[in-house]
């Protein structure tokens, strides 16, 4: 079963790292096939940034996300550009503070979770840049595409030494919020 994930935002949000961690969790720890690709502008911060992850139980041929079932949209630009790519019934996570202008009609096709992820990350760990990890936790919980322990291991592989606890805290907050979302408690 081919599952496509698209993460869009701007440079500095950890968009590509989130894609790498998700792909690693699937390919190395869940024993699945996964391809992570990326697109970014020449700037390292501020420019548009996109990561795509295709996960499957068989070898992945075409490596890009055509009709993603899962979208993480972390900027207005990413929202405007990629929302319509979503497959019917796709799970869409939106950084609501950064996406002030929404297309409610189009969103009806999807299962949308809009939260101020950056603010929540800052309140949880004291660092807004742990937002990408928090969102991954949320996606893991609401999608079930990879195992929770696999994403934990992949986060620990990828984050800088000394920040493990901080990032796990963000991840677990994501799990917690995801669980609440599934129970309709958000």
């Amino acid at each position, binding site marked *: 079963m081919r599952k496509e994930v698209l993460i869009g935002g701007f440079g500095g949000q950890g968009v590509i790292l989130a894609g790498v961690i998700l792909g690693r969790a699937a390919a190395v720890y869940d024993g699945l096939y996964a391809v*992570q690709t*990326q697109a970014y502008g020449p700037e390292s911060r501020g420019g548009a940034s996109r990561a795509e992850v295709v996960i499957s139980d068989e070898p*992945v*041929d075409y*490596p890009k996300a055509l009709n993603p079932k899962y979208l993480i949209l972390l900027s207005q630009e990413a929202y405007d550009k990629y929302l319509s790519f979503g497959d019917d019934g796709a799970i869409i996570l939106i950084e609501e503070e950064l996406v002030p202008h929404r297309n409610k009609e189009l969103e009806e096709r999807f299962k949308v979770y809009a939260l101020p992820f950056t603010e929540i990350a800052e309140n949880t760990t004291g660092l807004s840049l742990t937002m990408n990890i928090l969102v991954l936790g949320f996606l893991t919980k609401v999608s079930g595409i990879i195992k929770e322990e696999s994403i934990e291991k992949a986060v620990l592989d990828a984050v800088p030494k000394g920040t493990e606890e901080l990032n796990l805290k963000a991840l677990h907050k994501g799990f917690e919020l995801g669980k609440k979302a599934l129970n309709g408690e958000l």
Partner: protein
Amino acid sequence: MRYPFSVGRSDFIQGDEAIARAAILAGCRFYAGYPITPASEIFEAMALYMPLVDGVSIQMEDELGSIAAVIGASWTGAKAMTATSGPGFSLMMENLGYAVMTETPMVVVDVQRGGPSTGQPTLAAQGDVMQAIWGTHGDHSIIVLTPATVQEAFDMTIRAFNLAEKYRTPVVLLTDGEVGHMRERVNIPDPDEIERIYRKIPKSKEQGKYPFRDWDGDGVPPMPVFGRGYRAYITGLTHDERGKPKTVEAEIHESLIRRIVDKIEKNKKDIIDYETFDLDDADVAIVSYGIASRSAIRAVKILRKEGIKAGLLKLNVVWPFDFEMIERIAERVNRIYVAEMNLGQVYHLVKEGANGKAEVELIPKIGGEVHTPKDIIERVR
């Protein structure tokens, strides 16, 4: 031997990183380069790993210097590599010919991006195929490999070193920005299970005097190692079997160049590698290679579901080229499509191979995005 990365297990890494690790595992101990997107990660990895395996990684003043250093290193007995992208590959053309003429085993990686000139640095393309084959001047042959996945980038890097050493020739690993930057799982084998080929070296002082004599009839002369007692003379000028310039004698030029060409062309069967998908009973064949072939595989799967008998020939080596195989395919199918990320390069080889037995059409794609399966399906349907 301790390696500066884990071996005998799988990892989730970029194509560029896989190429660097495979080179180290193949025995490469000299790397010279100049940073360029989207090949810089190969250099970064080499700069990190080489000192830890008693190798050398050096930043040269430019790509001319990089390939020159690699040629020199190879003559000291080292397995050596450089990596670049289009603009740097253009600068390497002169010395690529020098490597062909002096029969220097080495690997040149071209991580293709959009061109010509500086073009689209961060985006993938397959526009350097003809350059890889024919970019250096004069009659010659060369070997060009085209990986489509990160695992293939790893495996073909090892193969590139083995072919370079076996045939005493430069080998081009022709990949692209998409494969170079994508991450996938790579199974990194136990180093003891990797097949490594090393060049023939002279067996006697007599053989050492003739760095360009084919002693055993396979077209590949033993290669002396600088510093181990042989006074080898190496030049890009047409030379005799001792390596001395002989620039006006037609027969010397002819025997040298024919041997350099034949050692590759006559061993096509050993060098050429390809895969087929659903091709045996196909009415329509798609020929593709590298990253574009992954869209073509998906297109074939979808077309088959629609009842269209499509099949794929995925080329893992684009030179030497099996024109006869293309003709055999052309005899069985109605039409051949060539899907590649350029405005038609391997298309011309396929057309020559088809020899009028089937229509050959190009499915081009430029601009940086890989063909979508739809791009291919709509043309074939």
